[in-house]
């Protein structure tokens, strides 16, 4: 039979039911199993990444290869040295630590954004677009408001929160669109959010290039935001701001409490997972779909706001793919708001460490993007780990093929 909670007539809501089936499975899996699958996926992704790096080392050219294999030639990249360099590059000095925490902070916001949607049974692939527009809104807001406030701490206390609120608002509106389309037109949010990413990038680029950007500059960018709107750096040599990290952690805990302790959180979760049951219990599932996507968009927008006020100090075309990294962070965390914290730290480490890898070993830091995809791929197939577990005798079912003989 066709598996995973197919409920007969998937006539016109196939994709919707698919989302539901996925969530059923994710919720059914026990917490311990989920942690095991996440860790297993991570290990496998790192191993496959190591193999990819090792093999591509034979294609690359370098002055001092680390290995010679007859028939293959000289290999340039040592995977073990690479992972060591990642760790060293991410934590080796205070500046490195600052960079790692800076990335972690941004990934916390985008990871939480994706997790909030996922918790409600929705795939938000659109965090990137919400972030791009949120960032632009924040940049324009602090550029405008910054002119009217004194260049003091008091000014910062006004201009930064206002900028973040506007960024979150615009991100929320952008997240609400696919929510409305899903709830009232049954348009699948995977497709709509991806499309809206392209639209967001195009609209923002056009606005900045033609209308509101720094028209004197050759680059597509806005004017730099005033000092009063910049989050104060906490570590020398890095723009990392402890305030942003603390805020991100507070939001993570807040969302965890929202889901575990409040009726609203319960409704949001059940609307996505058990739509029919939620409706039966008197919950407006459609409205909750819109609410979840909007909340997800708000967090994406705030990620953009933090990016502008803490990292770039202006809006510039080519915002890094933090929204897509957020997908990996959330999936690795099992979509648990608290789990997002270590997952974001892991990706922050990879991102910062990969820069060192690029500089000192010549291994392209695009590798992190490959690892991001690999982690998602492995987590997508829990069955792989169940089979593996069974094969090595961890499963509850007896192994039929080898006559009970265990290794």
């Amino acid at each position, binding site marked *: 039979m066709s598996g995973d909670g197919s409920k007969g007539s998937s006539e016109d809501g196939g994709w919707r039911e698919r989302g539901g089936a996925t969530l059923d499975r994710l919720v059914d899996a026990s917490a311990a199993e989920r942690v095991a699958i996440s860790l297993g996926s991570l290990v496998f992704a790192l191993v496959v990444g190591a193999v990819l790096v090792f093999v591509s080392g034979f294609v690359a050219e370098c002055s001092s290869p680390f290995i010679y294999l007859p028939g293959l030639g000289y290999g340039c990249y040592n995977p073990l040295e690479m992972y060591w360099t990642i760790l060293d590059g991410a934590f080796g000095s205070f500046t490195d630590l600052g960079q790692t925490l800076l990335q972690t902070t941004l990934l916390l916001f985008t990871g939480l954004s994706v997790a909030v949607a996922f918790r409600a049974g929705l795939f938000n692939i659109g965090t990137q677009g919400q972030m791009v527009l949120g960032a632009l809104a924040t940049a324009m807001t602090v550029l405008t408001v910054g002119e009217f406030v004194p260049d003091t701490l008091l000014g910062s206390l006004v201009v930064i929160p206002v900028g973040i609120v506007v960024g979150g608002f615009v991100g929320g509106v952008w997240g609400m669109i696919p929510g409305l389309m899903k709830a009232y037109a*049954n348009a699948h949010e995977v497709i709509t959010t991806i499309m809206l990413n392209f639209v967001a990038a195009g609209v923002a680029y056009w606005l900045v290039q033609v209308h509101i950007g720094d028209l004197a500059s050759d680059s597509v960018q806005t004017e730099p935001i005033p000092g009063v709107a910049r989050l104060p750096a906490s570590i020398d040599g890095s723009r990392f701001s402890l305030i942003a990290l603390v805020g991100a952690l507070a939001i993570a805990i807040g969302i965890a409490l929202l889901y575990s302790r409040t009726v609203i959180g319960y409704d949001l979760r059940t609307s996505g997972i058990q739509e029919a049951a939620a409706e039966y219990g008197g919950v407006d599932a459609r409205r909750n779909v819109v609410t979840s996507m909007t909340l997800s968009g708000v967090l994406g927008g705030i990620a953009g706001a933090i990016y502008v006020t803490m990292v770039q100090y202006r809006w510039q075309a080519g915002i890094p793919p933090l929204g897509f990294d957020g997908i990996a962070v959330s999936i690795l965390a099992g979509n648990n708001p608290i789990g997002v914290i270590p997952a974001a730290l892991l990706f922050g480490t990879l991102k910062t460490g990969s820069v060192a890898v690029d500089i000192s070993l010549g291994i392209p830091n695009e590798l992190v993007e490959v690892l991001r995809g*690999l982690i998602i791929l492995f987590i997508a197939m829990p069955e792989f780990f169940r089979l593996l577990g069974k094969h090595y005798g961890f499963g509850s079912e007896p192994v039929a093929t080898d006559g009970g003989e265990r290794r």
Partner: protein
Amino acid sequence: MNAPTVTRRQGLAIGAGLLGVLVLGLVVDGGRQFVGEIAGVISVSYLGSALRFTVPIAFAAMGGIFAEKSGVINIGLEGLLIVGAFSSIATMYALGSESVPIEPNPWLALLGAIFASTLIALLFAIVCIEFKADQIIAGLAVWLIALGAAPFLSVVIWNRRSSPGNVGTFSSISIPGLSALPGVGQIFEVSPQVLLLLVAVPVSWYLLNRTTFGMWLEASGEDPKSLDTAGVDVRKVRYAGVLLSGVYCGIGGAGWALNVGQFTGTGDTMIDGRGWIGLTAYLIGNYNPIGAFLASFLFAALDALQIELQQIAAYDISSTLVGIIPYVAVLVVLTFVGRTRMPSAAGEHYDSDE
């Protein structure tokens, strides 16, 4: 079959196209003489470039149809196109035709692309069919892996995210006799990838609608149980469907890259969302290769039009704004058509032993 749905969808698609032209008209400086200018742009050479623009979108769309008809939703089309584009250029480079393209090389590059893209599709198929992965998340992973791996390998090989210079392209094929005709002769000078596309569309339609294999695909996506009962291995049919999507995307990606002669790995790579447009093109075309081709052509023609219009210096057109028209059109179509009639069992796993 359900004719009203098709008509409505196609009506909307045409409407979206016209809307796009209208938006273009507004973007263009006041819109004056706009219609005249568009008429001036539409020529034989414009048609040719529009068809070349259609290649990656339509091949991705047709590949997506084969996979989804068999019951496996492949949203990794964009990634497969990226793999195709990159590996064709890498093959060209390995063959050493940096300056002077040697005639068989583009064809070998095409084969290289098909091989690489099908290999990734095989991986995706194994993950989805053997390990029962969630197809949406696995497809997303294919996209993200390709989005990272192609620039990664590009840096390994060329020390930068894009291939250096022009490694050679397909040269166009002239159809003897017809291409010498005055005025319209240009139509009969086509690039091989366009020719492949024009052949692939009817062939795909025939495969899906008039062959046993097509029937199996349909059954595998609609009612795998009865296909199984009839003694056909559902797994094999699904593998075939997904692998075909790899073959098609290999051709599409290579066709696009061998048109430019270069791989660009910056930003969203040179594929730049064409796989996603392809995905929506087959939704608009209601899983029909011909409909998908027409939808792809509509978006590609719009893209080509914008580039042609930019060359008319009097008009200050923002290419980025025009570039988002297909996405907006897709959003409009999804909102107002919404319920796409997808294969009933698409996205579901099938175990024959139950």
